[in-house]
């Protein structure tokens, strides 16, 4: 039998989408929160808010659009009773395609847009802080700090001509006409010099005041005495101090090879273990992993305190770590980059104490991951062991390094400072280093506010859910977010099918089309659909939330699948049960 077409509902549906888009666009323009956001963010706000509002309301809009379009479709010429599903079977494929598109937007684009949306607010707040810092600095006569704060503000809001001219005036006052030699010019020169210095020169206290030939001589004597670790140590120092010395490099390679070949069966078992640990520490040191080598040699030093090699490499690792510093201005620049804010979490690296970490801000740049406004408190249920803070930090080998230096004035540096107790330098803790248990990916999810889950991708939510409890956060809200994002595409399809059924059931007669005033009341449809849709989704969220906290997340997922299968079945039955005539 030839399929009878009754027209397509998608024209009306897309008209609904278009009208909704226009409505949200206009509303976003008129409700721009100028007190919270900088004017420069008007259009980014408008586009992201329009998209988010559309996604938030797309289910009732689809339901209303489907209902209206079906209520306006013409009945097919009847020859007896034609099952309704034959009339609309081609439309079902279209609805399923729309549901797939909605799912892609919900899981793919929406979290990103939400993340950008949140960034607009945090950057605006940051910019206002810089502005007030600049004004406070001016009040106290600190013009250099004022210029820096203005520059940071302008990095966010470069279009503010008033601040531009104020900053230019101040720069002229400070540096004269040649602004190229102002802070920016000095910074780039300083950066290059600093980078060179950091990369090439070993710390002065490691060479013990010896010249390269003396270091090579000492390495040779240790090599001939069979003390390969010391031989390598001095040969490597000589090679770093004077990279042109091929003999130093050759000696270092020879010593290294001997360490690698050392036959552990020739020594006693404990010596062999100590030796193995020394070799591991040595390899770590040799590959530049100074935090790890520090820990290995610190542990060895507790075990064999008289071992001179261990003591020497422990000191060498410590000195290397002390020389590991980041430039504070890089950390300050990172504050202007998009990133996570107000992170609060447990850092579960000890069994017998709790460590709470607060990170005011975290942002990734090409130079690395930086943190600002850091606090760490370690305690037992009886007493506080340590509580310290640091203005800035940089991620380094899975740790936060608190040691920052000023590019222009080497005397100025930032470190951790104890509020109460002392920094945890006992038990092998590295000074100015905080080992982090959560990785950088997970870190950004450990925010104080619960509302920030919307910016996380679906896959990130899955990953985080199983781990987040260890960091002091409830896993239930994440489970619920996963359940909701899984639920919504089904709701989209089911409510669209319900809309089709209702529209067809209450369709206008072909011969008596609605008069034009009726079309003016079209906004009433999404309003009604919004109430129905919200109750439908809300009721399911309550059921799923209850099953999750009473039983388990898996049980909630099973119930979700069962509920959706039932709802889809009933919606299809309702649709198929309509009469075509």
């Amino acid at each position: 039998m030839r399929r009878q077409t009754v027209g397509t509902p998608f024209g009306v549906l897309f008209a609904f989408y278009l009208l909704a888009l226009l409505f949200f666009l206009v509303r976003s323009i008129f409700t721009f929160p100028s007190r919270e956001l900088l004017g420069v963010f008007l259009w980014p706000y408008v586009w992201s808010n329009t998209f988010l509002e559309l996604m938030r309301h797309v289910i009732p809009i689809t339901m209303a659009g489907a209902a209206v379009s079906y209520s306006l479709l013409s009945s097919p010429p009847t020859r007896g009773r034609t099952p309704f599903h034959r009339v609309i079977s081609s439309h079902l494929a279209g609805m399923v395609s729309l549901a797939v598109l909605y799912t892609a937007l919900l899981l793919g684009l929406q979290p990103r847009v939400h993340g950008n949306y949140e960034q607009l607010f945090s950057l605006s707040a940051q910019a206002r802080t810089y502005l007030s810092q600049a004004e406070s600095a001016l009040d106290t006569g600190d013009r250099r700090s004022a210029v820096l704060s203005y520059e940071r503000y302008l990095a966010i809001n470069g279009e503010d001509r008033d601040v531009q001219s104020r900053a230019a005036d101040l720069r002229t006052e400070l540096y004269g006409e040649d602004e190229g030699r102002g802070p920016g010019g000095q910074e780039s020169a300083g950066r290059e010099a600093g980078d060179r210095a950091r990369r090439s020169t070993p710390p002065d206290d490691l060479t013990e005041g010896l010249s390269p030939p003396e270091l090579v001589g000492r390495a040779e004597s240790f090599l001939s005495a069979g003390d390969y670790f010391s031989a390598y140590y001095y040969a490597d120092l000589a090679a770093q101090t004077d990279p042109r010395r091929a003999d130093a490099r050759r000696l270092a390679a020879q010593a290294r090879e001997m360490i690698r070949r050392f036959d552990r069966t020739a020594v006693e078992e404990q010596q062999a273990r100590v030796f193995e640990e020394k070799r591991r520490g040595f390899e770590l040191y040799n590959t530049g992993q100074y935090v790890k080598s520090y820990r290995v040699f610190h542990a060895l030093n507790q075990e064999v305190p008289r071992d001179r090699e261990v003591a020497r490499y422990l000191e060498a690792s410590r000195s290397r770590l002390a020389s590991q510093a980041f430039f504070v201005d890089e950390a300050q620049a990172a504050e202007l980059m998009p990133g996570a804010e107000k992170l609060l979490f447990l850092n579960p690296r000890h069994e017998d104490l709790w460590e709470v970490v607060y990170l005011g801000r975290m942002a990734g740049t090409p130079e690395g991951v930086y943190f600002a406004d850091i606090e760490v408190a370690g305690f037992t249920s009886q007493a506080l062991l340590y509580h310290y803070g640091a203005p800035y930090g940089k991620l380094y080998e899975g740790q936060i390094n608190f040691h920052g230096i000023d590019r222009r004035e080497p005397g100025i540096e930032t470190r951790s400072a104890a509020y109460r107790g002392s920094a945890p330098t006992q038990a092998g803790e590295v000074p100015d280093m905080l080992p982090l248990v959560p990785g950088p990916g997970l870190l950004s999810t450990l925010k104080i506010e619960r509302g920030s889950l919307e910016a996380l991708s679906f896959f990130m939510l899955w990953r985080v859910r199983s781990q987040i409890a260890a960091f002091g956060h409830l896993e239930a809200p994440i489970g619920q977010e996963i359940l909701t994002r899984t639920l919504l595409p089904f709701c989209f399809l089911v409510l669209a099918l319900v809309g089709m059924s209702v529209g067809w059931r209450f369709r206008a007669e072909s011969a008596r089309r609605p008069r034009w005033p009726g079309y003016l009341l079209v906004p009433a449809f999404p309003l009604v659909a919004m109430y129905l849709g919200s109750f439908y989704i809300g009721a399911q969220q309550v059921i799923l939330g209850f099953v999750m906290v009473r039983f388990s997340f898996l049980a909630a997922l099973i119930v979700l699948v069962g509920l959706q299968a039932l709802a889809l079945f009933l919606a299809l039955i309702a649709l198929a049960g309509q009469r075509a005539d």
Partner: protein
Amino acid sequence: MRDLLRLPALLLFFVVLLLLLLTGIDLLATWGTGLSAGREEALFLAGARFLPALRDSLPVSVLLALVLLLFRTTLRPGSRLLSFVVPLAVSFVVLAFGYQGLDGLQSRLESQRVEMAAAGYSPERYLAEQRFNEAGEQVLYVSELEEGALRGIVFYDPKARPPKLRYFPRGVVEVMESGVRVGFGGTTRELAVEAVYAPLFEHDPLVRPLLEDISFLNGELARLFRESRPAFFLISFALVFAFYAAGVFFRVSRWPLLNVAIAFLVLRGYLYLVRLVGGDMVEQLGKVFGNPTTLSYLPALILLILGVLFMFVEMLFVPRDRRRREHA
């Protein structure tokens, strides 16, 4: 004449169905919210909530059942008199006397509620051990929580001068009506914390105004039931009468779907009107007239006037079997 039996049966069926659905959702939310305090307390809370939930769901269930019945009478119009009088009478009886019955039952079980109030909620309902507990902008971390005693506390206050984290070895917690009162470090703070699982059962912000209107209606019914039985019966009748009279909107135009949408919005408008008139307006008028007893009749009177108006419109201008005529 078949409508004489069919319509009340259908109405009662809808009422029971909706009552079960709404009460069930309410109880699940209560039960789930209490689960952080342990299964026994959660179950006890859900049990204590059963009758109040049933009573709170009754008015909405009756009004929604009436709307569903209107669908049926619109699609299959029967006797004008019967399909008006019978559902109206039955729904009034169910609402007014059902409410009275549930309230009486609840009063008998009041001892249970008193017992709960005396025992108080467990602090675990509001504070989770070894978790960060949000209290507005502040955050409270508790390492150990046992019978109101706190150990190993870290308090985060974003507005405090650095340090933002503060440690206290021990403290106490006491449950209040909205949140908890905690004492540590020589000071007592009232923290507006939600129950640990409450955010999972929060309502969608889109429907919050509607739920607030429904909550106001329930509050008004409870108040009038306590203060003046005639006023309670009057507003019960006014509600069902106005809702049922709004059936005229199901036939107001030649586009049936639009009629349904308009009718829904009118019914939504009734709830808003009750809140507007019963809340702000009565308060303002009370200052002028100084007779609150008479003014408490005002929402009911306005609903009655609207109901009568819509009934006249239907009788005079809207054909009862419009849909059937258009099909013919």
